[in-house]
Structure formats: C-alpha cells, structure tokens
C-alpha cells in the first residue's frame, strides 16, 4: 500500500471516525479499588473521569498500577487521576491526534464535541491504526468492485451489439495540457479491463493525435468507440488540413515549428507512430478543409 495514501487519509479523516464512542466513565468519588473490575471487564486501559457531566480528568491503568504500588489504603479516583486533561475535538483531522500523541506521550485523549463541549468519545493510538486500516480495506474493496464491474460491462449489457463511446475535446495551442485527453482515455480503458497491449496502442495513437491537434489546429475532437474486440478512434479538426498526405506519412517529414521540436515532438514521427499502432488507418484531409483521421485497433487475437 503506498505510503502516500495513508498520509492522505490522516489529513482527510476526522477524529470522530475512528474514536471509541461507547465510552465508560467513572466519577471522581469512586474508590480506586473498583477500577480493577472496570478495567478487566470492559477490557480497557483507561477511562475519562466525569463530574456532573463535565470532564475533570483521565484515569489510566498506569495510574492504577502506581496506586497499587505505593498503596496506603483505598483512595478516591479524584485524587489519583491525571487532571489537566488534554482533549481533542471530534471534527479535528487525525493528523492533529497523531501529533498530539507524539508530543504529549499520553496513551489516550478524551474527545469532546466542539460546540457543546460534551464528552463524546475516547481515542487511542490503536483506534487510529484500526480506523486507517479499515478505511484502506474498504477503499481497496470499492476499487476492486469498480474494476470488476467495469471489466464485465460487455457481459452485463444485454444487446445484439454493444458500443461504448467516449469523446474528448482538445483545446489547441495549450501545450501544457497535451496528453490530458489521452491520459483520461487510457485510465478508462485500463479500468474497463482491456488487454494492456491494446490499451497501450490506443493510448500512443491518441496521444500523437492529440499532440497534432494542439500543435497545428485551434482544437478538435477525439472520439473513441469501444466494441468487443476492437477500438475505433476518430480524430477530427477544422484546422489547416494536410496538403500532401503521402509525404506527411514519410518518417521524418515534419512541418512543425522549432518550439515543438524543443519539447520532444515535431520530428515527423506522429502520423508514422499512429500508423504503427493501428490495424487500419485512413486520413481524409484537404488544405483549408480540416482533417479527419480514422483509426481501428484490434485486440491481439483479432489482429
């Protein structure tokens, strides 16, 4: 599991999502000797001390052991508890709790509601770890379910023929955004469970096409039709058009400006690469009439 995911969750999740809610409290007038049973029966190692609905302290197993050790007869919890209780608000992010555990050295914090100041729970380091693990597991399962559903979509749809269409609008001249559409398309196809080799060919072909749209036109559209066993890509624009298609298909022939070359493209390989990825490719273009490129990519076994 990537480290970054946990970091993200620590900021995203709130104290209230992981704290223990069904809390047992004790009063300051209760004798220390009664703690033994409470700790044993409830399997806890510390509990808030509440007086008249107000949080006045925390008594922990450590306090109890210390009392046992220098026992001078029974005492009241109120005399042995930790008084200056540090609390957390229920709506604070987990990262606050983590840093508070780190700096204070305490094993647990009482959690109070921000508005009412009412005690609503207790949080320990164990709660945080358990909460994070649960959340990671849930997200993992959700992703698995998404993946499974997506990859079985053709089996789930009952029809004589099924076609999924994805359309992407590409804005011209925005070099920084080049590849955004292809990236989104690739993620979609991966999720749909297409074979990786086929997905890669579609991604490279659309990426080169997207680059052409951005370099040579004011923008255009990439339309992708997905059918069982094949992907059809249509790239259309109303740009300057290609005067000599045969020449444009020669490796190394380029009309791209210098700035494009400096960015690693424009070396006359775009259309060549698209052709290399495609099982069928057709270019319809004339000067001033825009360009329409049709590409068909087949699954490995249909090639």
């Amino acid at each position, binding site marked *: 599991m*990537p480290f970054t995911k946990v970091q993200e969750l620590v900021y995203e999740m709130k104290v209230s999502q992981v704290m223990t809610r069904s809390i047992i409290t004790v009063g300051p007038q209760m004798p220390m000797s009664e703690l033994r049973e409470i700790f044993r029966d409830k399997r806890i190692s510390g509990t808030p001390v509440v007086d008249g609905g107000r949080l006045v302290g925390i008594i922990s197993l450590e306090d109890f052991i210390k009392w046992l050790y220098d026992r001078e007869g029974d005492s009241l919890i109120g005399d042995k508890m930790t008084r200056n209780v540090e609390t957390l608000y229920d709506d604070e992010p987990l990262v606050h709790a983590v840093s508070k555990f780190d700096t204070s050295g305490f094993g647990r914090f009482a959690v109070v509601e921000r508005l009412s100041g009412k005690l609503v729970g207790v949080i320990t380091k164990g709660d945080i770890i358990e909460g994070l693990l649960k959340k990671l597991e849930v997200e993992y399962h959700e992703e698995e379910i998404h993946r499974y559903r997506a990859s079985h979509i053709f089996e789930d749809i009952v029809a004589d023929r099924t076609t999924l269409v994805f359309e992407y609008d590409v804005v011209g001249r925005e070099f920084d955004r*080049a*590849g955004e559409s*292809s*990236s989104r398309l*690739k993620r979609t196809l991966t999720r749909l469970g297409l074979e*990786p080799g086929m997905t890669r060919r579609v991604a*490279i072909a659309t990426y*080169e096409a997207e680059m052409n749209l951005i370099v040579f036109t004011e923008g255009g559209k990439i339309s992708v039709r997905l059918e069982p066993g094949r992907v059809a890509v249509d790239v259309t624009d109303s740009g300057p058009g290609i005067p000599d298609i045969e020449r444009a298909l020669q490796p190394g022939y380029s009309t791209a400006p210098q700035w494009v070359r400096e960015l690693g493209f424009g070396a006359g390989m775009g259309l060549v690469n698209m052709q290399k990825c495609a099982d069928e490719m057709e270019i319809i273009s004339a000067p001033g009439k825009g360009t329409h490129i049709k590409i068909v990519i087949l699954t490995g076994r249909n090639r």
Partner: protein
Amino acid sequence: MTTDRVATGETSVSSEVGVAKMTLEEVREILGAEVIAGAHLLSLEVSMGCGADLMSDVLAYGKPGSLLLTGLTNQQVVRTAEMADIVAICFVRGKRPDEQTIKMAKSQELPLLWTKLPMFESCGRLYRRGLIGVSEYTE
C-alpha cells in the same frame, strides 16, 4: 575493458540477453542518482533501458517495462512514460524537471531519478552492468 565482467562473474551479455532485470535501487547506485519522486518504489524492476530526447521515438520504439533516460524535462516526458508503460524516468546531464512535472509523476506513482552524468555515460554504465537495450529485449 570486458575483464571487469568476467572477473566479477557476471553473466555474459550474449547468452543471457532478454532476461536481466535491474531494480531502480541498483540504477540509482550505478548512476549515483538522486530520487526526485517515488522513493518508496525503488524495488520496482526495469527490463531494459531506452535513451532518447525525442518523445516520438520513445512512443515508437520504447517497450513496456523500460527505464527511460532523457535530457528533456517537461511534462510531456511524464505523459509519454504514461502512454508507453515506461516504469521509471532518469533525467540525465543534471537537468531537473519543474514542480508541475514532479507533481504529475507523483500522482501517477511514476518514479523519477536524476543524475549529473551525461546521456552516453549513463547508458554506458547501465549497459556495462547488464541492463539491455530495447532492440535486444524479447519477452
């Protein structure tokens, strides 16, 4: 200077073509590289190396499972890696990508390395230690 390989008992290139893999940690060591992104992914393995400054060439000749060595540092390098199923990128000649490019790589869990060595020496060192090239790779 082939004695080096013989002396250290490394497998000879001719008989083992297509099988040698290298972890990113090894790549980092061999190139004295720094990790810019994906420090938690250094146990990933690359099957071959691909050195290019022209991204179209990477798209045309690169193969899935490659390490890309490049002197180009813009966002399109990361995009290209994404499309071509490149495992990791190592920037050569001491060129560093900008923050935007690093951010994009991080969001894709794509490791980025950075070495001061020039392209030829970077490729040469990796090749000498057994990392093969794209044309030698067979599945």
